[in-house]
């Protein structure tokens, strides 16, 4: 066990591989083939299954307790979200179909809840906020780069510099709050928490499903964009309040 690893600063090799597979799987799902979501599934559930089977032993008892507690929280959030979505879509026996985006929303809520709860139990708010913001910032950065590349290579073979630069600036404006927040957490935790909540509200206002018929895609985007910022900001403010 390396020093940084034994100090709990870095996840285990299995955790790093799992996180990479989740991000890679989501990107492959978005840009290559919907069926490749299975790659994210292997990353999200594989290590936990191996640990429960006793084939992977890379956590101590506190980490296992945090993971089990987070699993219960994810079950509560995911189950409640699934029931609410099914009820709303089929209200009055309308018989509306549940699209793949709704399923994705429930999975995203479960995964985000599990990640946030496990890290918050193990590390408390500041380090959890740093890690969550870096993970989601990295995801949106990769998403932005992949979008720009896919649009630049779109059929015509021409390279539109202005469109590409606009895409880069839009990507930075989304990723910026995540990376700046991760940097500022230890310096100004209370102010950072408040700013993260305000930015989450702005994202919700800008990217929300207001006035649309199908809310699923927008809610999924908000879950991956605004919810991490809101959760981190709230956790920071609550922790700062309890320590003063």
């Amino acid at each position, binding site marked *: 066990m390396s020093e940084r690893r*034994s*100090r*709990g600063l870095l996840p285990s090799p299995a955790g790093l591989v799992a996180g990479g597979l989740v991000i890679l799987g989501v990107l492959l799902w978005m840009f290559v083939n919907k069926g490749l979501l299975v790659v994210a599934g292997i990353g999200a559930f594989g290590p936990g299954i191996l640990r429960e089977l006793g084939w992977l032993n890379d956590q*101590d*008892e*506190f*980490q296992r*307790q945090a993971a089990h507690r987070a699993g219960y929280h994810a079950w509560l959030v995911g189950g409640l979200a699934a029931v609410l979505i099914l009820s709303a879509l089929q209200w009055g026996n309308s018989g509306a179909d549940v699209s793949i985006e709704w399923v994705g929303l429930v999975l995203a809520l479960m995964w985000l809840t599990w990640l946030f709860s496990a890290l918050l139990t*193990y590390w408390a708010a500041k380090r959890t906020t740093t890690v969550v913001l870096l993970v989601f910032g990295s995801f949106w950065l990769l998403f932005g780069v992949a979008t720009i590349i896919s649009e630049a290579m779109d059929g015509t073979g021409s390279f539109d510099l202005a469109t590409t630069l606009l895409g880069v600036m839009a990507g930075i404006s989304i990723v910026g709050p995540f990376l700046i927040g991760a940097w500022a957490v230890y310096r100004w935790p209370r102010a950072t928490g408040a700013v993260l909540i305000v930015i989450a509200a702005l994202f919700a206002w800008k990217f929300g499903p207001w006035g649309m018929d199908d809310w699923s895609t927008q809610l999924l985007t908000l879950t991956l964009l605004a919810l991490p910022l809101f959760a981190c900001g709230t956790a920071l403010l609550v922790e700062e309040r309890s320590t003063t």
Partner: protein
Amino acid sequence: MTQQALAERVGVTRQTILSIERGRYNPSVGLALQIADVFGVPVEDLFEIESETGDE
């Protein structure tokens, strides 16, 4: 003894030792006994139940 050294002796992460010290995590009986064994003291010398009034 540093937190890191104790963590290595009992086979947990330093974060776990830190969380025990800060009262954020109650260790299992097995881990509590291991920690007491490292220091050569009875486990009740290291851990105690807080009273409802907050007195230790």
